[in-house]
């Protein structure tokens, strides 16, 4: 049965099948934050990766996989892998040797930093990497390069949830509870998350709760696969979450569906909230959100009356100019009803990236040091300086956040190292981002496929795919787990942590980067996180194998981690009380207008991951969803005389795109939806709004104003 912490999960009682001449590598998917377990089939003879075999005994998914998971292994033998370094010569990327590439990189770093100062060389990293690599990137920036300018793509993804959890609960672990707790909820309120498509392996838990009689409330402007099976679907206008939640709170307070004892003993700030939500009556909230008042009342009653329940959310709530307000407001739903610290009660954000949780804990965020320490905290700086063996003054302060960093390329920042990200697809105003990247004096990128961003680099270094390395990831629940790989590096590819250590060596900083294995790095990470909020000190590779993952915090070697937070109802503030924060509805940064009368929202489809650099290359996934499209409600389509399958032009004040119209009743009449996984002329991020959330610095991807135009001379029309 395994460790007691895994008792209520989804594992199944079957063994994997081992075929003749093969071995199985027991590892995890490289895609989303669920970190589903899988076995990779490797042919012993030549170490080639030949397939996937279910890993029935892993608690989280019990062998189940989404299509991305089933197809993930097909990256390993993919013909488009970069197998040798590339250097731009006469405008073209040409094959080069590692020595040439490394000499060039090191000389450019020295040249740029010598001329413009240390901070003129920046690092833009990612959150699909192991904890070891994320930690190493933060350390390399601060004491390898000595630059303050490192930030990562999680800024676009998890940063609002992080700020929201910290300001409300004093701690940011994306799931306060083990995922198995979802089964024991009486109500699940899922907001701004198309869980079925973006985190499919959460569905057995949601159905587990449904089978026990739980109610499901889904907040989403579209009738997604998740919303389709809800008891109440609050199809709000994008960007109106704060008002909706104020409405739910209004009804719950008015009808006394709150837990006054919990509020008094374990929270502060309730009176301000009560005062503020007084004006948010259902009729008023219905007007703002465009969803019926009676549905708001029904949802509030279901949530308020339930003993146990979860408020869960994702990018639909977070990627807004008021994203942190919305996160904290959803947390308020559980605070005023006392839904914390029990089996079946808590809050969670659906972590998008593979290591969205771990990647935001150990120092690759520009304002942070390992263990969730603040880089401005003198004590934290002192401690980390001790671990690294440097003087505290050698650690730079906070630098620029991800999008601000891109905007400063060519100005404050002259050189850039890009690792594990594809910002020219994933950033707002991607056209401008291309110009920023081109204005760099020097741009080096590490990747295993030539992404749209890598295409612009001066040097491209070939790295390995995830199953060619070892390390740890931290999943959506805060469970640290082991990723294992095949011992091979195809062509001239190298593991990126080794390359970073090598660059440090060549820069004369090698003494701080003496690592022979990911486990070496992890052992330093353990020490660096010791005493921090995300404390990994007690976690060892051995313990991870034995327990099938360990939940942080795990502060001592005897500790077995903490699957469920707040069981003692002590929140992470000196007084132990959670903060109920009150927010007026401000609305999106950009409003619709006469010229741009329709709301655009963006999102994912089940077949693709983030910028699509990996999934667009896998035939079987691409075939199911080869191109982006625009979802339009029949009534809106009628207004513009647009028929299904016709190409239409969608424009915002920042750019335009031509897309095939998909006419469907699942969307609202006042909006359109476009998935964001494509680059260049197919990138919807030409249109999205770069307005940043003031606290989290997340861009407002989820709302901007657009217009629709029928393209008059389309071939479809001419030929009937």
């Amino acid at each position: 049965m395994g460790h007691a912490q895994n008792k209520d999960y989804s594992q199944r009682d079957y063994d994997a099948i081992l075929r003749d001449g093969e071995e199985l590598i027991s590892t995890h998917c490289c895609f989303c934050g669920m970190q589903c377990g899988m076995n990779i089939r490797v042919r012993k003879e030549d170490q080639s990766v030949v397939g996937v075999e279910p890993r029935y005994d892993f608690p989280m998914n019990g062998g189940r996989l989404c299509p991305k998971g089933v197809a993930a292994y097909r990256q390993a033998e993919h013909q488009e892998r970069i197998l040798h370094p590339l250097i731009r010569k006469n405008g073209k990327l040409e094959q080069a040797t590692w020595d040439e590439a490394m000499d060039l990189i090191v000389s450019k770093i020295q040249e740029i930093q010598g001329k413009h100062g240390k901070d003129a060389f920046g690092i833009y990293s990612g959150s699909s990497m192991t904890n070891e690599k994320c930690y190493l990137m933060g350390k390399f920036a601060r004491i390898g390069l000595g630059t303050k300018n490192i930030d990562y793509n999680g800024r676009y993804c998890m940063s609002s949830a992080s700020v929201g959890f910290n300001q409300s609960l004093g701690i940011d672990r994306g799931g306060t509870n083990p995922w198995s707790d979802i089964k024991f909820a009486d109500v699940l309120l899922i907001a701004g998350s198309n869980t079925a498509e973006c985190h499919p392996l959460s569905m057995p838990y949601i159905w587990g709760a449904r089978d026990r009689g739980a109610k499901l409330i889904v907040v989403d402007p579209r009738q997604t696969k998740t919303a389709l099976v809800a008891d109440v679907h609050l199809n709000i206008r994008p960007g109106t979450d704060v008002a909706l939640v104020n409405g739910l709170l209004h009804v719950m307070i008015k009808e006394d569906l709150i837990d006054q004892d919990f509020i008094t003993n374990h929270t502060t700030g309730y009176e301000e909230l009560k005062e503020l939500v007084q004006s948010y009556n259902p009729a008023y909230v219905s007007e703002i959100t465009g969803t019926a008042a009676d549905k708001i009342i029904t949802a509030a009653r279901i949530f308020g009356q339930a003993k146990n329940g979860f408020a869960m959310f994702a990018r639909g709530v977070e990627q807004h100019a008021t994203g942190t307000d919305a996160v904290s407001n959803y947390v308020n739903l559980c605070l005023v009803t006392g839904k914390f610290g029990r089996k079946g009660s808590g809050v969670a954000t659906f972590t998008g990236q593979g290591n969205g949780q771990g990647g935001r804990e150990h120092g690759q965020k520009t304002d942070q040091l390992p263990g969730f320490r603040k880089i401005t905290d003198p004590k934290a700086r002192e401690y980390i300086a001790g671990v690294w063996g440097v003087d505290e003054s050698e650690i730079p302060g906070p630098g620029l956040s991800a999008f601000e960093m891109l905007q400063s390329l060519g100005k404050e920042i002259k050189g850039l190292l890009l690792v594990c990200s594809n910002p020219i697809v994933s950033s707002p105003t991607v056209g401008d981002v291309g110009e920023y990247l081109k204005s760099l004096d020097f741009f080096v990128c590490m990747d295993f496929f030539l992404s749209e961003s890598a295409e612009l680099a001066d040097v491209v270094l070939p790295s390995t795919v995830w199953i060619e390395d070892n390390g740890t990831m931290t999943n959506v629940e805060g469970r640290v787990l082991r990723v294992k790989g095949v011992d091979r590096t195809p062509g001239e590819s190298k593991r990126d942590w080794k390359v970073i250590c090598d660059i440090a060596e060549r820069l004369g900083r090698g003494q701080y980067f003496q690592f022979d294995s990911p486990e070496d790095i992890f052992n330093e990470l353990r020490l660096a996180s010791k005493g921090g909020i995300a404390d990994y000190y007690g976690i060892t590779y051995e313990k991870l194998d034995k327990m099938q993952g360990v939940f942080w915090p795990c502060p001592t070697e005897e500790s077995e981690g903490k699957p469920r937070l707040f069981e003692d109802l002590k929140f992470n503030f000196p007084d132990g009380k959670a903060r109920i924060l009150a927010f007026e509805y401000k609305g999106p940064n950009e409003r619709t207008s006469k010229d741009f009368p329709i709301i655009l929202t963006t999102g994912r489809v089940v077949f693709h991951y983030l910028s699509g650099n990996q999934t667009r290359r896998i035939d079987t996934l691409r075939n199911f969803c080869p191109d982006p499209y625009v979802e339009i409600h029949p009534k809106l389509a009628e207004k513009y005389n647009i028929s299904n399958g016709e190409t239409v032009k969608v424009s915002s004040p920042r750019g335009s795109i031509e897309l095939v119209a998909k006419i469907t009743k699942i969307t609202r009449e006042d909006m359109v939806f476009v998935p964001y996984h494509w680059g260049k002329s197919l990138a919807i991020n030409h249109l999205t709004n770069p307005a940043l959330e003031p606290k989290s610095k997340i861009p407002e991807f989820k709302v901007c104003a657009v217009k629709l135009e029928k393209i008059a001379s389309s071939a479809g029309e001419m030929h009937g």
Partner: protein
Amino acid sequence: MDKVLYIDYERCIGCRACVIGCEECSGHDHLSRMFVDELNPGETVATSPTPCMHCVTPACAESCPVQAISIAADGTVLSASMEKCIGCKNCTYACPFGIPKVDDVKKVMYKCDMCYDRTSKGRPPMCASVCPTDTIRFVDQDDIKNDPPKPVQFKWDFGGTIIETRTVIGLPDTEEHRFGYREGDGVQS
């Protein structure tokens, strides 16, 4: 233990993990035998997977002129024997569910054999192994037919001919909407 496929399509998210997973079974030569259909495109995102229904009296096998389609001891209707199959497509036309496909290059029929390579070793077929929402399950035949968790169907009326299948379909609740399942109302504000 006689196990069959149970499809609770109310839970289907249309992700096609079953379609891709099907290719991963060692006997399947990377040719998927699984189907997923959109039930009412434009109206709803509802979808449903269709594996072979494994008829108790399979029309495909009965129509085969060369007896290439065998039935395993447990009742599984196997894919055509590579040696015997002549690619005539009789089975494709005979099947009331439209399941057998013919590889036009190899001139051989292929269809769901419930991953015989796996089920003969006591493991679930790939579709039921990977399905992320438990839409497709590998369950005891007597249990699911006699004591189902919800209304099910495994007898089908084709113009007066009743066909019983080993594969069992769970019916969505479109009367009470107990799981909120609706067919194509679009978004109600």
